[in-house]
């Protein structure tokens, strides 16, 4: 073997060695970038999932009838017991269910009229069916006691203990001429509008209208 050919071989190896090293570092760099992208994608999908799938129950309570309020509070207390975050939004006729028994604020005639006509609190709520001039709710309450079903009053207390959030539609209060002091006391109760409801409910898994 001649010296020239050995020199040529070395040059060949050096050239290729450098090329291989460059390729290796390129592959390494690509791997690093792909790993980075994977990590950021994982983080993004986690954020999206958390944003779109919060373990949350939002209830719009519209009806002012006893049977629907029973359903609302069974769901609320049950979900809170399951570890879910629960927000209730009382609107329209349901706001009357939150009135204190005898509270009647000083207010204009039409608002006072509504005050007389609307049920004075949860104890005076009618049934949505078979109300029978007020006999229906009496029978249901009797049966509930007999069968060990918690009353709405008891479930309101339980909801407060379990951290169920209670929001009242300010527009309904205004419309029906109701004042804040007419409502029963509930820890952290707030008055809200549609934006607060939508912001709360939108990322949740479960929203019901009752």
């Amino acid at each position, binding site marked *: 073997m001649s010296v020239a050919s050995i020199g040529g071989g070395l040059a060949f190896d050096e050239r290729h060695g450098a090329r291989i090293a460059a390729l290796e570092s390129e592959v390494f760099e690509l791997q690093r970038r792909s790993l980075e992208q994977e990590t950021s994608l994982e983080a993004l999908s986690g954020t999206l999932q958390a944003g779109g799938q919060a373990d949350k129950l939002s209830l719009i309570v519209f009806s002012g009838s006893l049977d629907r309020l029973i359903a609302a509070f069974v769901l609320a207390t049950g979900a*809170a*017991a*399951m*570890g879910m975050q629960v927000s209730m939004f009382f609107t329209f006729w349901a706001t009357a269910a939150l009135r204190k028994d005898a509270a009647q604020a000083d207010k204009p005639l039409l608002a006072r009229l509504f005050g007389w006509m609307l049920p004075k609190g949860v104890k005076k709520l009618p049934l949505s069916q078979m109300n029978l001039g007020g006999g229906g709710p009496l029978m249901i309450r009797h049966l509930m006691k007999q069968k*060990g*079903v*918690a009353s709405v009053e008891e479930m309101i207390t339980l909801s407060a*203990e*379990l951290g169920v959030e209670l929001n009242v539609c300010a527009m309904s209060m205004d419309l029906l001429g109701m004042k804040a002091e007419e409502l029963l006391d509930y820890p952290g109760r707030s008055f809200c509008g549609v934006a607060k409801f939508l912001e709360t409910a939108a990322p949740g898994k479960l929203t019901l209208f009752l």
Partner: protein
Amino acid sequence: MELVDARGKSCPLPIVLIAKALRSAAAGDQITVQSDDRAFPEDIRAWCRKTNHELASLETRDGFYEAVVKKP
């Protein structure tokens, strides 16, 4: 072991009462709950799955169910 007697109490009280009892319990604590609610076997299973508690046992006694739930 703490006993939650939810007999004679209807849905959702059995799971509400056990949730309240387990809140103040320490990790590893076990609580016995009794219920004669027809929905209880399904509800207590679902409750344990959802809240990551261990259902150590679920048995039928004389006219009621008895479950032992362990806090993780």
